[in-house]
């Protein structure tokens, strides 16, 4: 089992790579979700402003 973690001595190169990959994938998901949420808020605000202008 420890062999797996040691990665033949290359552990300090292999594991950071996979961690970076996980980080980048995670960032992409988080960033895309945040972008969409911010866009929704902006649209709702625009609708609210248009509604208050009409009334």
């Amino acid at each position, binding site marked *: 089992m420890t062999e*797996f973690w040691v*990665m*033949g*001595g*290359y552990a300090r*190169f*292999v594991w*950071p*790579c*996979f961690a*970076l*990959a996980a980080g*980048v*994938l995670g*960032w*992409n*998901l988080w*960033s*895309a*979700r945040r*972008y*969409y*949420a*911010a*866009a*929704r808020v*902006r*649209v*709702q605000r*625009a*609708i609210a402003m248009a509604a208050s202008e009409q009334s």
Partner: protein
Amino acid sequence: MWTWFYRLASPPHVYRVAAFLAPWLLGAAAVLIGYGVVAGLVFAPPDYQQGDAFRIIYVHAPAAWLSLFAYTTMAVAGAIGLIWKIKMGHAVAAATAPIGASFTLLGLMTGSLWGRPMWGTYWAWDPRLTSELILLFLYVGVMSLRPAFEDPGRGDRAAALLAIVGVVNVPIIHYSVSWWNSLHQGATVAKLAIPSMPGSMLWPLLSMLAGFMFFYGAVLCMRLRGEVLNRERQATWVREAIKT
């Protein structure tokens, strides 16, 4: 027969399709990446020359491939927006840019970590590495140009032109290993040739490649929804769509 294609020019249609596709693409990505990581880390045998360090290929190669694929998508989408004036083309280009840039960065960083044990250095000014770095700068240039214009339409068109001009770099990166004497290894998986890798090593790699592609599609759909909302803020269909 081509109606599905023409409908892609319509923002509400794109919004709906993206919402529908995203979870499926993400699910497929999860399965493929999950298998790829497990098989690549556990079941693939260590390489004769590189030992266990070769396993970095399972994140490095997909990241680098995707950086090229995303840039080409950005350039093509920008061209569609510029030439045929289809606004959704610009939306796709804008959504793709940060995703592609992040993969370029991942490719460079994982490549650097792989280079240290293999070549003895974190960096080398070798054609493939250098042109991949130039690709990152091109991404940054496109992402900086778009918001610099007051008129967003103008910004879209300018960014599209820049992306198209920069696409010359993509074949340079891809062929750099065969055109120049490069430290970087040549193509492992050529389109029609039988790859030089044994199956137990190859299948996880192909799975990771496919998984990253599906992931890119999923995140693109997610970002695209935000882009469409931002661009179509004033349209009436948005009011109904927002409620769901």
